[in-house]
Structure formats: C-alpha cells, structure tokens
C-alpha cells in the first residue's frame, strides 16, 4: 500500500452540472494541461416489463471501494502521463436524467487523458463494490446489473 492519502469519491445524491463546472474552472490555473477528458454516467429511464425506472439508489461497501479506487488511481497514474484525475460517484438516490458518475482526467496532450478516462470508467464499474437499486415509478424495485 502506498503512503498517499486515500481520497473520498462519494457524494450524496446526484452530481450537479454546477459541481462539474466548478471542477473544470479549477483547472484554468493548471497551464501545463492541454486536454481534458470527462465521462459522466446518467440515470436512464429504462422500461422493464412496462414499468419505468424513476431513480437509482446507490449503496457501496465504502471502505473497500475507496481502497480499490486508490489502487486503480495509482495504476492509472503509473500508466499514463496525467496531470490530474478526479472521480466522483453518487450514493443514495439519483433520479432519471441526473448524473451519478463523474470521471475527469487531464494531460498535456489529449491521448493519455482520453485513454485514462475510459480505462478508469471500465475498471470502476468492474471492480468497485457499489450497487444500484432501480426504483420504478410504482416504488417497486430491482437490483441493477452491469452488462
């Protein structure tokens, strides 16, 4: 385990466009950066057996998630020449159309930022113990499964 401090990635409820704008704006003083790549996950209004998803309620094994995320972060920084990496995931209820995941990578040239962003999203979905419960409009639910 590295000595670096483990960062929190969890936010309660949806990630707002204003939060994302603020995060982008903070990088204007980092003038070595030439390219930013962002991925955002948004809750879809999926139809399942005639019922529509109204929200997803996220829970996580938080400590294990943060440790895993820390390992992924270190591996990605080792692999790509990045200037920055920021990751946020919602806990609790996120309604359809709202944002539940925000991954933001930056580098001097575009390719490392783009590749790193995509790889972080893949690894996060596969490796972080987070669960989404799809709440339907009639308040029944089913547990989401990543394909």
């Amino acid at each position, binding site marked *: 385990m590295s000595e670096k401090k483990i960062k929190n990635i969890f936010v309660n409820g949806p990630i707002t466009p204003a939060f994302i704008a603020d995060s982008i704006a903070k990088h204007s003083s980092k003038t070595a950066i030439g390219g930013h790549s962002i991925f955002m*996950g948004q809750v879809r209004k999926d139809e399942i057996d005639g019922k529509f998803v109204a929200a997803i309620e*996220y*829970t*996580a*094994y938080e*400590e*294990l*998630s943060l*440790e895993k995320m820390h390992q992924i972060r270190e591996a990605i920084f080792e692999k790509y020449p990045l200037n920055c990496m920021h990751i946020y*995931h919602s806990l609790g209820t996120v309604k359809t159309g709202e944002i*539940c*995941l925000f991954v933001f990578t930056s580098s001097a040239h575009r390719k490392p930022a783009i590749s790193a962003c995509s790889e972080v*999203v893949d690894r*996060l*979905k*596969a*490796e*972080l*113990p*987070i*669960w*989404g*419960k799809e709440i339907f409009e009639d308040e029944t639910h089913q*547990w*989401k*499964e*990543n394909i």
Partner: protein
Amino acid sequence: MEIEIISFGKISELISNQKIDFDGIADTDNFKLHLEHQFPALKSMKYKLALNKNIVQENTQIINKATIAIMPPFSGG
C-alpha cells in the same frame, strides 16, 4: 469464533448484517458451505466474499473477529 457478516445489494434483502458465533469454520470455502446451507437461495446467486476488506480470490483462513462481506455482482457507475 465470532464472525461479523455484512451483506450488500440484492443479498442484503436475504441476509441481514449480523454477528455469528460458531466453531468449525476454518476457512472461506467452509464459510460458503455453511452460508449456502443456511440460506439455500444463495446457491443460485452469484456473489463474492471480502474477508477483512480483501476480496477473496482463493480459499483463505478465517481468524477470530473476522468481518466477511457478501457481495453480489457490482453495478456502480
């Protein structure tokens, strides 16, 4: 031997968080047998264990006061 069980996602609806006290459970393979015996519905579900915050990849010895997490497939993001 005391084991703390925590469960997540779909499995949290089947098995609630609890402390159990029993002997004769030496390792995680053994624990799974015990668990599936007690909760037969688990047999048809996919899940992973984490022993003291380490995801169990192969059979691992369980020591006293362990925390074992029972985790269905992840669905974050």
